[in-house]
């Protein structure tokens, strides 16, 4: 679509805002375990999450929109993750990456929280041990789809 000089377009502000928002989902720099290696490769040139507008991994939760829980969550890490999630500004999304973050995975023991969704709400679960980078990209795609459709946390959401 091309807009030449002298022409203009009409659109709903909500749609434009959601379009902008879905194209700049900034993840939080937070690697918990081996899944973080795949998350890093998603950010690296080969898979290049920058194509989706998520190239900036923010080191501060105040500036991040997306939390990628990349690995098993230790009991001691649980309160820290909860706090980081609370510090992120609304609207915010969470991807639970891999078997451990989603269900505890093979670590059915005292030290690991059996699924990060027991402490924070999760939008997309990515299966795998670890998931492929494509899987994580697809999860980001699903988040973007959610935003464009005006799902939870749309920028101009009335509720």
């Amino acid at each position, binding site marked *: 679509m091309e807009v030449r000089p002298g022409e203009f377009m009409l659109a709903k502000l909500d749609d434009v805002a959601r379009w902008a928002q879905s194209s700049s989902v900034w993840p939080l720099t937070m690697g918990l375990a081996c899944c973080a290696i795949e998350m890093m490769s998603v950010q690296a040139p080969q898979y290049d999450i920058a194509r989706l507008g998520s190239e900036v991994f923010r080191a501060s939760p105040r500036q991040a929109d997306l939390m990628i829980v990349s690995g098993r969550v230790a*009991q*001691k890490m649980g309160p820290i993750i909860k706090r980081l999630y609370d510090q992120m500004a609304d609207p915010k999304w969470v991807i639970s990456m891999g078997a451990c973050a989603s269900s505890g995975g093979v670590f*059915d*023991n*005292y*030290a690991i929280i*059996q699924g990060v969704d027991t402490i924070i709400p999760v939008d997309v679960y990515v299966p795998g041990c670890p998931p492929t980078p494509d899987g994580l990209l697809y999860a980001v795609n699903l988040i973007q789809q959610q935003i464009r459709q005006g799902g939870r946390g749309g920028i101009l959401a009335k509720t």
Partner: protein
Amino acid sequence: MPSSQTPSIAGYALDPTTVRPPLSDAEILRITPGELRETLVRLREEGCSMLLDVGGVDYLARVPRFDVVYHLLALPAVPASVEEIGTPRRVRVLVGVPGEHPHVPSVTDLWVSADWAEREIYDLFGIVFDGHPNLRRIQMPDDWEGYPLRKDYPLRGPAREATPRPSFALKSNVPAGAPPSGKVAEALRQQIARARGQEK
């Protein structure tokens, strides 16, 4: 608290260190907590200047129940070539600690490297190191109850021990009594026979 996941005691070698062959590169000393300080001071004066690690072991049924293991290495006091050093001396000191009120004197004043190692053993085995300047948990959360590396600690934690584990043994698609591996092997044999038949 005894756990349902604890293997039967009869299956244990009570003390593997008694049947293990002696290692050529390390002297092994077995002492009591009372002798610990003087032994380690003596070894340090003899040149074992480096405390590599301190470890804990729980033998559960044995008396004394725990072992605290000190790994020492003799570092050269002056710069020396590899030929002059040869094989450096290594000493492993095993201290038996009783299961009731386990106490061991701390050696943090001799080696600073013992600080975190002793905290870790306190955290995971509940062995108290007398004289440690900062003896608190290091890996588990501060309000954690119990000592997870003890053999009688329930693997999934006290809260979840009673919940059933998922069973992967129940396979509804395999008829009772038929070993699945046999079916796979037979299928493979037929596949190979077919492939050979086509070659001819």
